[in-house]
């Protein structure tokens, strides 16, 4: 009852303000008239009665103000008054306003962008159910790759994981009958989707029950993006047979939108069971080779109640058994667990460090902006000392004046925050669709979410409070009498000191920022012009893959010869050659070990180094 009445009053006071005020005016007027009536009845003439009545009321305006002050929603109204006044003040000095908003846009925008990336890559869990129990199994401190037999043993012998899945990354030629094209694929263990606990968007996934030994599961699952772009959202694809590297594979289903495997940077087109590797690439060895760590990543889901430390110990006890059984192939590195998403600690560490550094720098930018705006605000408050003094002299409370100044600073910072957020959203969207290396399906999935909006808002409010607080002491210490007496030259005392400190802070921060960005830019320039030992200018790369076109054995060199001859015949071509992996390009997942001539025991721990091997 009381609440409803309050709410009704609030609505009336806010929405029908003029009506409410007119009513009050009339009520007080009628009160005065009736009081005068009484006096007239007592024998006093009307003008005199009216005059004495009004004198007794002590100012109708004063009464009106006390009634208004007690109204529900008075806070809103005061706030609204402050906001209107602040807007008027800011409009009067457009130069100041634009400078302040622009500074804040840059500062808050930079922070929002960096936080957006940090949020998407580090803070946000992987887009799968119960991501917190999912871990990447590493062999060594930052090596997430494993051999297939090792995986099978770990999976069978561990007691800590609900499920342990593995995948390799490779390329195939996918032929739907019309347009054979290169696709990037995850070759996964049969339980991959079940380990991640995701559901298909269309059709079904393959499971462990579909896999019965080598080449037993010629199935393919499409990623949502690939289905969308290459099959035009055709819902009848389920059950259709396509050719992968010339071999028939049945499309089982489509993965849900937004699912892009367990590596954030890498977008896979299709998923196929790893047991069919021999069929796809003609390699009989590799699935049984314990020494070749070509499985790109192993992910496991911990059993409820098992801690990562317990699981690590469990894996290492399996490992000690494996080391005893296969001393030549097993390395001495212990097993460790890492968060999924950034290929274990391999990318997680560097990304985290890099982004933390960036966040720190952008925080400094915001701090510099606040220092700058703080001194601007202090100067502005000093310029407005006479206005403030006049308001104090007319009976305005210091609280009210401070609140008004704060309203101004918060309005500015909110405007800057919104502009910065909009800019950062545009930038993050661009970054999300950006593919830094056209040959690889790498991207930076950093679409902004509510967290980013929230952080931008909080940053805006905090910075508004930060630079709004600078002139507070000036106002509190202001003596209206002195200022009005001093005339237009009058200013608050001690203002120089505060602003000097701010200036020093600002210069210091800016020096740090300029130096660090110069160092970064110079490092980048140097790496672009460094001496590679060969001349990369005018060299063109053509990506070919004969395996995906069904060439094998003797036919490969002949076809390569023909291609080289054909390209050589193009006018302007100076020389042509072919190479498995061009220099500077990241090596594939197939790695070989290099030993010195004197090494007898060819176990991985004795290797002198690793190199990408010419496995095709």
């Amino acid at each position: 009852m009381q609440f409803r009445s309050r709410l009704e009053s609030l609505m009336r006071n806010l929405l029908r303000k003029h009506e409410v005020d007119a009513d009050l005016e009339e009520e007080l007027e009628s009160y005065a008239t009736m009081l005068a009536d009484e006096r007239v009845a007592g024998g006093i003439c009307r003008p005199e009665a009216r005059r004495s009545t009004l004198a007794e009321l002590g100012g109708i305006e004063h009464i009106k103000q006390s009634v208004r002050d007690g109204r529900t929603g008075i806070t809103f109204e005061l706030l609204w008054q402050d906001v209107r006044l602040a807007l008027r003040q800011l409009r009067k000095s457009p130069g100041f306003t634009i400078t302040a908003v622009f500074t804040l846009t840059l500062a808050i925008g930079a922070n929002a962008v960096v936080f957006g990336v940090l949020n998407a890559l580090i803070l946000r869990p992987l887009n799968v159910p119960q991501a917190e129990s999912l871990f990447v199994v590493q062999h060594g401190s930052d090596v997430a790759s494993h051999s297939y037999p090792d995986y099978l043993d770990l999976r069978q012998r561990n007691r800590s994981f609900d499920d342990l899945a593995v995948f390799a990354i490779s390329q195939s030629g996918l032929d739907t009958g019309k347009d054979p094209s290169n696709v990037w694929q995850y070759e996964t263990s049969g339980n991959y989707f079940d380990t991640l606990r995701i559901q298909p968007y269309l059709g079904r996934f393959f499971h462990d029950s579909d896999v019965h030994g080598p080449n037993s599961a010629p199935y393919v699952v499409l990623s949502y993006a690939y289905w969308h772009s290459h099959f035009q959202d055709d819902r009848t694809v389920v059950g259709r047979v396509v050719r992968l590297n010339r071999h028939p594979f049945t499309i089982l289903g489509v993965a849900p939108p937004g699912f892009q495997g367990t590596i954030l940077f890498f977008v896979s087109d299709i998923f196929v069971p790893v047991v069919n590797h021999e069929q796809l690439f003609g390699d009989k060895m590799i699935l049984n080779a314990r020494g070749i760590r070509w499985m790109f990543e192993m992910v496991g889901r911990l059993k409820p109640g098992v801690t990562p430390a317990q699981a690590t110990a469990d894996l290492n006890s399996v490992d000690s058994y494996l080391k005893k059984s296969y001393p030549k192939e097993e390395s001495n590195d212990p097993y460790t667990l890492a968060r999924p998403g950034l290929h274990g600690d391999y990318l997680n560490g560097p990304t985290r460090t890099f982004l933390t550094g960036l966040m720190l720098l952008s925080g400094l930018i915001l701090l510099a902006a606040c220092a700058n705006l703080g001194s601007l605000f202090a100067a502005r408050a000093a310029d407005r000392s006479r206005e403030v003094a006049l308001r104090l002299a007319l009976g305005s409370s210091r609280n009210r004046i401070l609140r008004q100044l704060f309203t101004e600073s918060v309005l500015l910072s909110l405007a800057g925050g919104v502009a910065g957020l909009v800019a950062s959203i545009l930038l993050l969207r661009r970054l999300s669709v950006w593919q830094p290396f056209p040959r690889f399906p790498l991207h930076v999935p950093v679409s902004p979410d509510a967290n980013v909006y929230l952080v931008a808002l909080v940053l805006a409010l905090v910075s508004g409070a930060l630079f709004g607080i600078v002139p507070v002491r000036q106002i509190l210490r202001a003596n209206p009498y002195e200022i009005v007496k001093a005339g237009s030259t009058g200013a608050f005392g001690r203002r120089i000191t505060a602003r000097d400190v701010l200036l020093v802070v600002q210069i210091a921060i800016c020096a740090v920022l300029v130096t660090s960005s110069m160092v970064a830019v110079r490092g980048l320039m140097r790496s672009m012009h460094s001496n590679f030992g060969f001349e990369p200018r005018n060299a063109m790369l053509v990506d070919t893959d004969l395996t995906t076109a069904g060439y094998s054995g003797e036919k490969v060199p002949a076809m390569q010869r023909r291609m080289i001859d054909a390209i050589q015949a193009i006018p302007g071509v100076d020389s042509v050659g072919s190479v498995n992996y061009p220099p500077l390009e990241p090596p594939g997942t197939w790695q070989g070990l290099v030993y010195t001539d004197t090494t007898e025991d060819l176990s991985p721990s004795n290797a002198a180094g690793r190199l990408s091997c010419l496995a095709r």
Partner: protein
Amino acid sequence: MSSSQTNLLQGTLDLLILKSLKTGELHGLGVSRRIEQITRGAFQVKPGSLFPALHRLEEAGWLTSFWGESENNRRARFYRLTKGGERHLGHEAEEWQKIAAAMSHALKAT
């Protein structure tokens, strides 16, 4: 005037206004005259405190107001006790009785 005293007086004023409206609707001047009458002239309510109190009580839902005609055919804003206001008055009056009894007991004690 300290704030505790203000609160006490405000509470007293609210109670007196509600009480004055118990017998029927009144306009602002009527309320202040009636309070004068029932307190035998001990309280003279000034408009500066009367009107804020009336509006506050109305917003709390204890009074309703409407435009009407005074005994001298003047247009005036009348106030009337709501059901909730009546309940509130009963409750407040009881509280006040208790306090008054306790106070007078306390002051009589030796």
